[in-house]
C-alpha cells in the first residue's frame, strides 16, 4: 500500500485514541481532507523542484509505534547539551518520556501538547493559537490531522526564562521503519525571552521519517532564540515545517545546523505582523555521501520599519546535493524595510550540487533589499599557505571551512550550543582543533 493511502486509512484508528468531540478535532478533520486531496508533494510542484521524496516514501513505515520503549539517560546523554542546566521535553518514538524530561508549570508552561489539547486550562491558548500560523499545504495538513503530541511552551509576559529549553525527539529503531509527526506550539507573550534547542535523533540504522510542524508566536518585544541541531543518522529523514508569527518590536532568530540525515527539508516561514521588529534566519549545512538538504525560507514583510537577515552557508562534498530557496516578500505598505539575504556555498567535489534560488517580491518603493548567492571552492593559495607552515591538508581544509561558517557560528548566543556545534563540525571533518573558535 502506498504511504499516502496507509496514512489516510489509519486516520480512523487514530480517532480512537483522541477525543473526537473536542473542538480541535474539527481542525484535524479538515486537515485530513486537505491531505487526501493534495497528497505528498512531487517534483512537479515548483517548491519541490529539486527535492524528490520518492526514495524516502517507499519504506513501509509504521505510523503508530507499537510499544512503549524506555531509554536510560546514560545511553543518550551525548545527544543532549548536557553541560548546561536546562528544561527538557523528551519524546521516545513519539511518546513523552517523563524519565528523561524536566518540565514545569511554575509561572511558565513547559510541557506537552497532549495535555494542552485535552485539559481545559490550556483551552484559551489553544483556541487563539493552535493551527493559526501553520501553512495549509499537504505535509503540514498531514501533521495537523494526526496532531496529538509534541512540545507545548507558553511563556507569560515579562518573563526571562533563564534556562534554555531542549526539545529532543528520539526513536529507538524497535520498528523496522517508523514515521513520526510531532506537533510543537510555542507562545511567548509580551516582553518575554526564551531560548530553545531542538533535535531529532534516531538510535539505530532503521529508516525514520519525521514530518514535524512547529508554530511560534512572539508577542510584542518578545525575544526568541531557536536552535535546530539536525545531525541524525544516515537513514533518518526530516521534513521540518516551522511557521513564526511576530508582533511589533520582537526579535526572533532561528539557527539551523544540518549535518546528518538522509534527506532534510526545512520549510521556514516568518510573518512580520507589526513594525520595528527583526527576524534572523541563519544556517550551516555540511553534508557528504548522498545526503540531500533543502532550505526553503520565507520572510514576509507586512508592515513598515522592519528588518530581516538571512545567512545560509553550505559545504557539499562527495555526491551530496543542496537546495536553497529563499523568498522575501515585501508588501506595498512595508516601507523602510531592510531585508538581507545571503547564501554562500562551497563545493568540495565534482559530483556535489547546489541549486540556489533567491526570490524577492517587492511591492514597496522605499526599501533596502539585497540578495547574494555564491558558489565556489576552497582557496588554493590559502591551503598552500597553511600547508607550507606544516599544517596537514585535512586540518588546513577544516580551518578554512570553519572560517567560512564563522559568522553564523558567531551569532549563536548560548555558548554551550556553539561549543557543541563546533565539536560536531570538527568530528564531521575528521579533525581535532587545538583551540576554541
Amino acid at each position, binding site marked *: 500500500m502506498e504511504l499516502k493511502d496507509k496514512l489516510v486509512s489509519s486516520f480512523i484508528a487514530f480517532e480512537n485514541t483522541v477525543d473526537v468531540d473536542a473542538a480541535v478535532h474539527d481542525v484535524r478533520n479538515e486537515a485530513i481532507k486537505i491531505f487526501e486531496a493534495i497528497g505528498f508533494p512531487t517534483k512537479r510542484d515548483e517548491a519541490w523542484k529539486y527535492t524528490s521524496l520518492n526514495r524516502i516514501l517507499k519504506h513501509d513505515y509504521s505510523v503508530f509505534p507499537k510499544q512503549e520503549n524506555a531509554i536510560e539517560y546514560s545511553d543518550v546523554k551525548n545527544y543532549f547539551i548536557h553541560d548546561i542546566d536546562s528544561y527538557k521535553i523528551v519524546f521516545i518514538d513519539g511518546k513523552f518520556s517523563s524519565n528523561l524530561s524536566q518540565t514545569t508549570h511554575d509561572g511558565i508552561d513547559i510541557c506537552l501538547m497532549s495535555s494542552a489539547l485535552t485539559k481545559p486550562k490550556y483551552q484559551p491558548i489553544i483556541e487563539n493559537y493552535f493551527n493559526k500560523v501553520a501553512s495549509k499545504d499537504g505535509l503540514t495538513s498531514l501533521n495537523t490531522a494526526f496532531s496529538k503530541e509534541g512540545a507545548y511552551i507558553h511563556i507569560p509576559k515579562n518573563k526571562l526564562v533563564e534556562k534554555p529549553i531542549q526539545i529532543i525527539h528520539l526513536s529507538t529503531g524497535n520498528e523496522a521503519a517508523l514515521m513520526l509527526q510531532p506537533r510543537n506550539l510555542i507562545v511567548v507573550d509580551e516582553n518575554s525571552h526564551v531560548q530553545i534547542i531542538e533535535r531529532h535523533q534516531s538510535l539505530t540504522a532503521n529508516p525514520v521519517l519525521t514530518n514535524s510542524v512547529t508554530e511560534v508566536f512572539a508577542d510584542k518585544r518578545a525575544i526568541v532564540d531557536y536552535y535546530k541541531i539536525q545531525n541524525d543518522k544516515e537513514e533518518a529523514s526530516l521534513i521540518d515545517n516551522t511557521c513564526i508569527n511576530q508582533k511589533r518590536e520582537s526579535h526572533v532568530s532561528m539557527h539551523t545546523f544540518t549535518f546528518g540525515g538522509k534527506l532534510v527539508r526545512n520549510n521556514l516561514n516568518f510573518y512580520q505582523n507589526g513594525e520595528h521588529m527583526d527576524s534572523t534566519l541563519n544556517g550551516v549545512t555540511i553534508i557528504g555521501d548522498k545526503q540531500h538538504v533543502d532550505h526553503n525560507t520565507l520572510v514576509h514583510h507586512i508592515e513598515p520599519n522592519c528588518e530581516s537577515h538571512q545567512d545560509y552557508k553550505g559545504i557539499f562534498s562527495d555526491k551530496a546535493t543542496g537546495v536553497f530557496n529563499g523568498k522575501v516578500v515585501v508588501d506595498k505598505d512595508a516601507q523602510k524595510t531592510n531585508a538581507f539575504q545571503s547564501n554562500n556555498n562551497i563545493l568540495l567535489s565534482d559530483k556535489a550540487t547546489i541549486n540556489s534560488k533567491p526570490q524577492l517580491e517587492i511591492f514597496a518603493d522605499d526599501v533596502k533589499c539585497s540578495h547574494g548567492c555564491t558558489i565556489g571552492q576552497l582557496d588554493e593559495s590559502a591551503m598552500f599557505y*597553511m600547508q607550507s*607552515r*606544516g*599544517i596537514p591538508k585535512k*586540518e588546513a581544509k577544516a*580551518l578554512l571551512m570553519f572560517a567560512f561558517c564563522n559568522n553564523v557560528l558567531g551569532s549563536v548566543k548560548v555558548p554551550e550550543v556553539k561549543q557543541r556545534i563546533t565539536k560536531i563540525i570538527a568530528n564531521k571533518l575528521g579533525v581535532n*582543533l*587545538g*583551540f576554541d573558535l
Partner: protein
Amino acid sequence: MTNFIKTAINANRKAKGLEDMPAKDMLKMIREKAELLEIDRKFLSRSLNEGFSGGEKKRNEIFQMAMLEPKLAILDETDSGLDIDALRIVANGVNKLKSKDNAVIVITHYQRLLDYIVPDFVHVLYNGKIVKSGGKELAHQLEEKGYDWIKEEVEA
C-alpha cells in the same frame, strides 16, 4: 595569529611524534620571539592577515619563522612592494634567526635586500637552471653589470 601559530607548531610536533607544546611554554616562546623581533603583542590577537598592511604582513611572516624554527626557510621575493623600513624588519629578523643549524633561501631580483641580508652563497637561475654561483661579490657584480653577460656566457 597566536591560534594559527599554535596550530602550526603542534602539527609539526605531532608529525615528529611529540606532544603538544604546553600552554605556558607557548606563551613564553611567543613573548621572547615578539621581543626579539620588536613586534607589538597587540598584533598577535588579530586575525591572520586580516587588515594588515604590507609591512605588518611581513612582520607576521618573520614572526612565524621565528616561532616555527624551520630547518629551511624559502623567502620568495620577500622584498617586493616593501618600503625601506619593512625591508629592514625582514632583514633584521632573518639575521637574528640564522644559525648553523638552519638555512634560508632568499629569492630576489634586487641588490637592495642583500645590503641588509648578506648572503653566504649567490646562485643565478636562467631557464630553470643554476648557471652561475659565487659568494656575495657575485651579487655586487650583477648590480653593476646586469644579467646580460651571464646570458652571453651561457649561450656561448
